[in-house]
């Protein structure tokens, strides 16, 4: 069974640009979660989607947004990139909402 996949693996942008990160959950999982993992910090919760709806969002500005598609894949959009947005962005999926989450390999975003 394929795990959670994310693309791209690496992304380099400059300040002010927009970034789009993509995630495909494990087959059958309807909940998708996005996290930011900055160097030296724990995972910070960004967004939770379930059945196509945004269920919860973390303490991040509105320029962090996303959506979930009918096939349960998801994308994270970060507008007006800032240097401090440089981090590993992790996507996870779960079969049941707020239960065991399985993570993808992440997208490493570098903002110059």
């Amino acid at each position, binding site marked *: 069974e394929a795990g959670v996949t994310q693309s791209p693996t690496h992304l380099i942008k400059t300040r002010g640009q927009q970034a789009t990160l993509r995630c495909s959950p494990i087959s059958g999982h309807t909940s998708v979660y996005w996290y930011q993992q900055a160097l030296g*910090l*724990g995972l910070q919760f960004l967004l*939770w989607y379930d059945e196509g709806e945004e269920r919860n969002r973390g303490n991040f500005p509105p320029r962090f947004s996303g959506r979930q598609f009918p096939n349960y894949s998801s994308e994270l959009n970060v507008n007006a990139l800032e240097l401090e947005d440089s981090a590993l962005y*992790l996507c996870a999926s779960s079969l049941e909402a707020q239960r*065991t*989450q399985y993570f993808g390999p*992440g997208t490493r975003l570098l903002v110059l």
Partner: protein
Amino acid sequence: GESVGLHLPTLSVQEGDNSIINCAYSNSASDYFIWYKQESGKGPQFIIDIRSNMDKRQGQRVTVLLNKTVKHLSLQIAATQPGDSAVYFCAANDGNQFYFGTGTSLTVIP
């Protein structure tokens, strides 16, 4: 809200010894906990979970202990191997989201 912290940022153990990694949480409403392992350049990998109606759960070479009275959980790794070298962190869920600790970096000395 919830805050999750690990007691030690780094831990070194001899190969073959047992490892214990500790984690504390603050919200008594948290009722589900997971331990993850993250190797360099990879996403977190699920190790073991435990619900608040249990105080101990065992897996293959791993045991998680939960003490709800003091809001503490630990991960015990038996007969630690070089492949166990990684960052380990715990996550606590309060029904709305998971809160993650910053991680303990485990180094296994051959």
